C-alpha cells in the first residue's frame, strides 16, 4: 500500500537541539492529518523537511512516493505549501500573488493560469478583494489569499502550517469547509494547529512533543486516552463558604474544590453534575456573582498526556 507521506526515523538537529526526533509516520491518501503540539514541538521543522527545504540529518522520507531529498520541480508542483507566516508580497494585489505562485509552480499557459486563479478566487470567496494590494487586506483575508497561493496549482498533497491561526471562528469554519471539500476530492492534507477543537475535525491526529509523535489516532481514539474534564468556576459575593456545602459539592463532583478568595473551582465530568452543584448553591442562599464553565486548555490536556507518558516510562 502506498502512502501520501511516509517517514522512517526522520531526524533533524539544530546544534544541540533535536527539533525532530526519529519520527516515523504513514499518512494514507485522501485524509486530513492534524499535527498538534505546542510551540517548539518540531511541527514546522517536520513539515519543512517534507517539502524539501530542510535536509534531514537522519532517516528517510517520501511524499507522493518520492524521496524528499530528491524532489524535482515536477514533484514539488504536486505539493502545495502554506507557510506559518502569511508569506505574501504585500505590494502586489491578491490576484497578482495568486497568479505569481501559479506561474512559479509551473502553470505557464496564461489561459489556464487565469482559469485556475479565477477558480480558487471564487472557491475561497475572495472575489471582492482580488484587485486590492495585500497590505490593505485584513489579517483573515490575507490568510485566505495565502491559502489560495498554496492551492491554486491544484496540488495533490497540501501541507498547511497553522493555516487558521489568528483568524475569527466564522472564517475558521470556512477554512475547514474547504479542507473537507478538498479531502473529498481525493487530496491529502497535513495541517498543524494549536486548537484542540480543530484536531477533532481531522481524520487522524498526531500529537507532537519535543520532536516526537507521542500519540497518533483518530480524534475519538485519542479522547479516550486523555481524561477530558471541564471545570466549573463560581464567583460568590461572600468569602466564607460553609464547610458543609463544600463537602456536599465535593461529593457530587467526586473531586476536590479549589477555593481562592471568593471563587470556587470544581472539576466536572457532566452537565448533570453542574446542574446539581448549582441547585445546591442556590438552596444554601449564597449569592452568586458569576458562573463559568472552563474548557481545559490544550496545554493542560497536553501536559496530562505528557506526564502520563513519563509515568509509563518510569
Amino acid at each position: 500500500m502506498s502512502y501520501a507521506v511516509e517517514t522512517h526515523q526522520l531526524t533533524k538537529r539544530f546544534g544541540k537541539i533535536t527539533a525532530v526526533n526519529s519520527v516515523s509516520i504513514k499518512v494514507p491518501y485522501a485524509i486530513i492529518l492534524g499535527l498538534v503540539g505546542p510551540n517548539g514541538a518540531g511541527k514546522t521543522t517536520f513539515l519543512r523537511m517534507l517539502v524539501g527545504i530542510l535536509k534531514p540529518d537522519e532517516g528517510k522520507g517520501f511524499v507522493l512516493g518520492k524521496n524528499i531529498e530528491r524532489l524535482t520541480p515536477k514533484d514539488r508542483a504536486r505539493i502545495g505549501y502554506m507557510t506559518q507566516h502569511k508569506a505574501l508580497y504585500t505590494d502586489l494585489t491578491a490576484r497578482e500573488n495568486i497568479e505569481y505562485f501559479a506561474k512559479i509552480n509551473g502553470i505557464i499557459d496564461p489561459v489556464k493560469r487565469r482559469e485556475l486563479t479565477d477558480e480558487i478566487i471564487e472557491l475561497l470567496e475572495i472575489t471582492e478583494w482580488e484587485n486590492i494590494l495585500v497590505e490593505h487586506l485584513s489579517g483573515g483575508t490575507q490568510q485566505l489569499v495565502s491559502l489560495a497561493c498554496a492551492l491554486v496549482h491544484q496540488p495533490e498533497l497540501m501541507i498547511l502550517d497553522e493555516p487558521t491561526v489568528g483568524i475569527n471562528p466564522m472564517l475558521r469554519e470556512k477554512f475547514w469547509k474547504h479542507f473537507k471539500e478538498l479531502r473529498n476530492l481525493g487530496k491529502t492534507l497535513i495541517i498543524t494547529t494549536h486548537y484542540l477543537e480543530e484536531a477533532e475535525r481531522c481524520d487522524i491526529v498526531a500529537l507532537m512533543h519535543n520532536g516526537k509523535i507521542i500519540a497518533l489516532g483518530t480524534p475519538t481514539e485519542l479522547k479516550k486516552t486523555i481524561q477530558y474534564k471541564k471545570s466549573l468556576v463560581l464567583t460568590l459575593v461572600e468569602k466564607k463558604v460553609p464547610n458543609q456545602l463544600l463537602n456536599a459539592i465535593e461529593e457530587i463532583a467526586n473531586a476536590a474544590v479549589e477555593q481562592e478568595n471568593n471563587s470556587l473551582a470544581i472539576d466536572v465530568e457532566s452537565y448533570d453534575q453542574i446542574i446539581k452543584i448549582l441547585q445546591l448553591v442556590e438552596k444554601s442562599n449564597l449569592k452568586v456573582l458569576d458562573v463559568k464553565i472552563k474548557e481545559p486548555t490544550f496545554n493542560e490536556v497536553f501536559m496530562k498526556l505528557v506526564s502520563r507518558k513519563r509515568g509509563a516510562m518510569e
Partner: protein
Amino acid sequence: MNIRRILTISTRIFKQIKRDKRTLGLMITAPILVTLLFSWAFAGELTGIPVVVYNIDQPLEKRVADAIIQVLENNDTISITLNDPNAFNKLGSVYQAVIIFKENLTRNVILTGEAEIQIYLKTLTQIDAQILTQIITNNISKAIKDFLGTKGITLKVNKTVQINFPYPSPFTQQYNVCILDYDEKLDIILGNLVVNELMSNKDVSLHIVSSREKCISMIKDNKAVLGIIIPNNFTKQILLHNSSIIELYINGIQQDEMTTALKAFEEAVNDALEKVFGEKTVEISKNYIYGSEEFSSIDFLAPSFLGFIAMFFTFIISGILFLRERLIGTLERMLASATTHTEIVLGYLISFLIVATIQSTIITLVTLIFSTKILENFLQIYTLVLLLAMGSVSLSIFLSSYMKTELQVIQMIPIYIIPQIFLSGLILSLKALPEFLRPLAYILPLTYYVDAVKKIIYMNATLTNILPQLIILTAYFILGIILGIKKFRKEIT
C-alpha cells in the same frame, strides 16, 4: 533550469520595486544626491585661506663702497681722500690714483656677483703703477669678500695708466689716492616683496599684524591657517649670505587648507626672489608623464568614487530586497515550489542587474556634469562600473543569506563597505598600507576597479590593457553567483 520561471521572478520583483516608493527613491534619488554632494565637495577650490604675516624686514643699509673705503683707509701705504671735486686736475700731482665707484656698485655686487671699478693712475714709474694697482685691487677684493661673507664675485678693473718717467727709478712707497664714491644703497626690502606676492594670490586672504604675539595668537585662535614672521634681517641675510630663517606657525587642523597656504607662501618667496635676482633661485621643472596640470581633484577622484558609490548602493538595495523575501516567508514558499535554487538566484540577479545598470548610469551621468574627463574613456569606465556593480549584486545575494534582519545588512556597511574606502587605493595609496594589511586590499573587488580606472585615466589604457582587472571583477561576479546558489542549496534556516 527554466528561463520563463526566472523571468517570472524578475518581472515580479520589478513590479514590486515600481510600487515601493521608498525603495524606488533609494534607488534613484539617493545615488544622485550622494554623487552631487561628492562632486560639489571635490570640484570646489580653496580660496581666501586666512594667512597672517608679521613683517619687520629692513633694507640693507650697508654699501659695498663703505666696506672698500674702510679697508683701504686701514692700509698704511696709501692715504685716502674722498670725493675731491678736482680730483682729476690733481691726478699726477697730489693723487697718484683716482678710483671711481659707480652708483650701482652695491647692487651689482649683490645681485649679479659682478663689480666694476674704474682706476685712473698717474705715477712716476712703472713699478709704482704696478704696486698701486695691486694694493688697490687686492684690498677691494678682500673688502668685498668680507662684505659678502661666502659669495665670490668677479672683479672687473678698468685701468688707465699714465707714467711720467718710463725709466726704472726708486718708487715712493707712499701714495695718495682719491676715491670718487657714487655708490648707492640697495633699496630692496625682500620681506615687502613676499608680502606683496601673497596679497596678489587669491588662494589666501592676508592679514598684516604689528606684533609677533598677535601673529601667533591668530593661529591659536584658529583665525588663520598660517602665520609668517619675517625677521628684520631677512633681506640682509638673503642678500649677503643667500639664506635666512622665516618662522612659520601652522594650524594643521585642515590639512588641505594648510597645504594650499604653504604652497602660496612658497610661491610668494620664490616669486619675490625671482624679481630681485632676475631668475628663479629654486627651479622646479614639472614634466607630467601621466596626468596633467589641468586635472582638478575631481578628475582624479571621480572615476574611482563612481565605482564606490555604484557598489555601495547596489549592495544595499540587493541585500535588503533579497532579505525581505526571506523575512516575509515568500522565499520559503518559492523554495518549496517548482522553482529551483538556481532559478531564484538568477531571477533576482537579472532584476538587480537591471537596477544596478540604471543606478550606475545615473551616477555616471551626474559625475559627467563635473568631470568631463570620464567622457574621454567612457566605454572603459562604464564597463568597469557595471562589472563592479554586478559583482556587488551577486556577493550581496550571497551574503544576505547569512542575515536575519535588515539591521544586519546595515551592519555589513562597516564590515564590507567602509574598509574598501581605505584599503582599495581609492583615497590613500596602496603603498601606504602596512605590510600585514596589503593582502586584505587584494581581497576586495574595489581595489581592482580603482587600479583599472587609474590606468585608464592616467595612461589612456584600453580594455585589453586592463584585461586582468576585468577578469578578476568578472570572477567576483561569478563567485557570488556560485556561492549564492551553494549557500541556498545547503539549506535555509
